[in-house]
């Protein structure tokens, strides 16, 4: 069971308190009606699923209830950093380097 730092509570809590909500920084198109079918399908279904560093949405569902984002290495299953919703996406490449891939 992982320990995850909640950027709102400021503490590490066991994974049990959290739920993962998939890849982060996939914004819902501002005007969905203007999207093509391909664009909409991509928004709905296509994810990068990398081997390595991924930015994910997590929710501290059994804590403060907030959504936040985290960089996680899918190979080592280690959290590299967490940041609040709305904050810009860190450069995963930089973390990839630090994670040694």
């Amino acid at each position: 069971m992982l320990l995850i730092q909640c950027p709102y509570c400021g503490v590490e809590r066991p994974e049990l308190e959290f739920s993962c909500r998939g890849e982060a920084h996939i914004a819902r198109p501002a005007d969905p009606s203007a999207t093509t079918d391909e664009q909409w399908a991509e928004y709905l279904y296509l994810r990068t699923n990398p081997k390595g560093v991924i930015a994910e949405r997590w929710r501290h569902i059994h804590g403060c209830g907030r959504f936040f984002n985290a960089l996680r290495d899918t190979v080592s299953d280690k959290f590299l950093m967490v940041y609040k919703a709305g904050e810009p996406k860190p450069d995963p490449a930089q973390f990839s380097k630090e994670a040694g891939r």
Partner: protein
Amino acid sequence: MADILTSELYSADSSQAPLLVLPDVTIMPAAPAARVSLRCRETGLALAAKAFGTPIPQTPLTAETAANRAAFWLGPDEWMLVAPESQLAAILSDLETHLDAVPHSVVDISHRQDAVLVSGPRAGWLLNTGVPIDLHESAFAVGTVTRTLFHKTPIMLWRTGPDSFVVEAWGSFMDYVTGLLVQSAEELKAA
């Protein structure tokens, strides 16, 4: 540090039998209380504090208390305000009045959850049979409040003293919480 509970808030419910009485730990159902969910942005905090009578805590996982009042930080824009049951209507209307000018949400959740008081030298041990977080005083100091899990059920946990805790759960989950606490305490009766 002495217990920070006032007797009016979270007193044992005299109409209900204790759930567990052992030399080292007791579980008492708490009397009903007024509970209000407060949601607002920073603009509302001072106004809400004025209406409610305690500061609205901004430090995560902390509570502010005053006579007959407790305000719990549950999230960055979410607080639970607790007061004696009889004051519910007044508190709701005071909050609405004071917060009228700013976006906010005030919702009565007095009946949504029930509370039990778990206390005694083995209270922390007993809770840790189902609560996955560290309840050592160095990690979970007196006054700390948090939502977490007890086995499969969400709870709110407030430490009111070195050996005393308030555990809140939604009404229909309370039998699960107290049933497991009582079952897990069974071994304390053994020699």
